[in-house]
């Protein structure tokens, strides 16, 4: 039985959820939360692309010629990859919610975090090497 309170009109009782047909659309709040999570990843991807351009345009020349461009290209490609990964993640989560299964695990945050940490360390080392003595 659906709950008829003000809040309950948009929710179902747990026992009702278990009897729901497989493949049904989830509650609109879950659909929108999934969409906003995709958009958060999408913005991260766009920030990586813009960061790639910024590295080439704004960072001063480093110790090794061409390093800025390689970093910029890597960041732009990473942004494209993250954008694609975000769609796959969104699709996987939406499908799991339709089937009322647990959300699939993801390693994207860990990979992104490690990648950014490695990039930051690499850039700091390069900037230190680029410093002229005196």
């Amino acid at each position, binding site marked *: 039985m*659906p709950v008829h309170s003000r809040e309950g*009109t*948009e929710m*179902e009782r747990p026992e*009702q959820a278990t009897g*729901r047909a497989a493949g*049904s*659309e*989830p*509650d*609109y*709040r879950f*659909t*929108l939360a*999934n*969409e*906003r999570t*995709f*958009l*958060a990843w*999408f*913005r991260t*991807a*766009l*920030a*990586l*692309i*813009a960061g*790639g*351009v*910024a590295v*080439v*345009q*704004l960072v001063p020349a480093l110790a090794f010629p*061409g390093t800025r*461009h390689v970093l*910029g*290209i890597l960041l*732009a*490609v990473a*942004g*494209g*990859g993250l*954008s*694609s990964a*975000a*769609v796959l993640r*969104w*699709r996987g989560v*939406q499908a799991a919610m339709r089937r009322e299964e647990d959300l699939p695990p993801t390693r994207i945050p860990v990979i992104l975090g490690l990648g950014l940490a490695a990039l930051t360390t690499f850039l700091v080392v390069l900037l230190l090497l680029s410093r002229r003595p005196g």
Partner: protein
Amino acid sequence: MRAAAGERTELAWERSALGPLAAAALLLFHHVGPTLGRVLLVAADVLLALVIIWFGRRRDRRIRSVRTDSSGRITVSDGGREVVGAAVAATAIALGTAVVLAFGT
């Protein structure tokens, strides 16, 4: 509640439009890569920003016209076209950016 959820989602789309605009501004800041490629990339970035804003409006309208299914649950379409379209466009722009930066070496 639904209007607020729609508003938050539309704002999330509109915030996303700032990314390509920032990339376009950075491309105009200095000269990097071939001029034609740079101009095309800036145009693509601005176009993507406009499309993202349009997607946000479209989603907001759709969220405001949600339906109740047979079990009394309120559902809304998943926005798959907008999601996939935006991601494909961003991936294409990312590759275009990489090419322009590569020619700038």
